[in-house]
């Protein structure tokens, strides 16, 4: 027996059955970010300087581009999931909420794509 009223059913209101996926992804990205974020901070701190030549050489070196791309992908994903919950909690008007969530999704994809593109450009492009 369903406890939902006929009106609720017609409106499609209720669980979209996607909560578990969101919850799980939030945890999986958290777990992945622990080592990735620590690697990022430690390797930035280990650089002797942050001028162009040093940073570009670092971005070309060994596993750095791969780890940077993973970090950017997982961090933007985690950010998207987290910011989404914040907007859902604090923006009560349905219209404004949908517009905000849509814009934030686009921004996060743009952020990830721009970051990955920037890393690949330095890593794969020869010396400038």
């Amino acid at each position, binding site marked *: 027996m369903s406890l939902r009223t006929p009106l609720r059913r017609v409106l499609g209101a209720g669980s979209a059955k996607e909560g578990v996926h969101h919850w799980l992804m939030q945890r999986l990205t958290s*777990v992945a*970010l622990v080592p990735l974020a620590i690697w990022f901070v430690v390797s930035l701190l280990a650089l002797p*300087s942050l001028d*162009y030549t040093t940073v*570009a050489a670092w971005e070309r070196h060994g596993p750095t581009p791969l780890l940077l791309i993973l970090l950017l992908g997982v961090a*933007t994903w985690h*950010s998207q999931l987290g*910011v989404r919950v914040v907007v859902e909690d604090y923006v009560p008007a349905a219209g404004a909420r949908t517009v905000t969530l849509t814009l934030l999704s686009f921004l996060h994809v743009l952020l990830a794509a721009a*970051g990955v593109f920037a890393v690949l450009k330095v890593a794969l492009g020869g010396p*400038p």
Partner: protein
Amino acid sequence: MSRYTLATSIFNRLTGVGLSLGLVLLVYWLCTVAGGPLAAARAARLLGLPAMKLVYAACIVAFCYHLVAGIRHLLWDTGRLLERAQSRRSARVVVVVSVALMLLIGYCVFVLGGRSP
């Protein structure tokens, strides 16, 4: 006495949103490096402004706190430390450990480095 746990939860959200903004800064920085030496040098003037030190300090605070508080959340997800007394204690542990981490990274960046990222 749930204020301690309430504050740690709100601060976790706040630092999370802050780190999302930090991510924008990181991507901007990577893009300027991808733009070549001239673009990077031009951006370095902006990124090296004294006021930016505040932004980096905020990023360090947000990063350390969100990392440590996030690990606490992951422990909770395994069903551990959920009792009220335990969560009050772990809230204190999170504050102490994250502040220690902030001081360590802050020292490396602002005292040892003396440079702006």
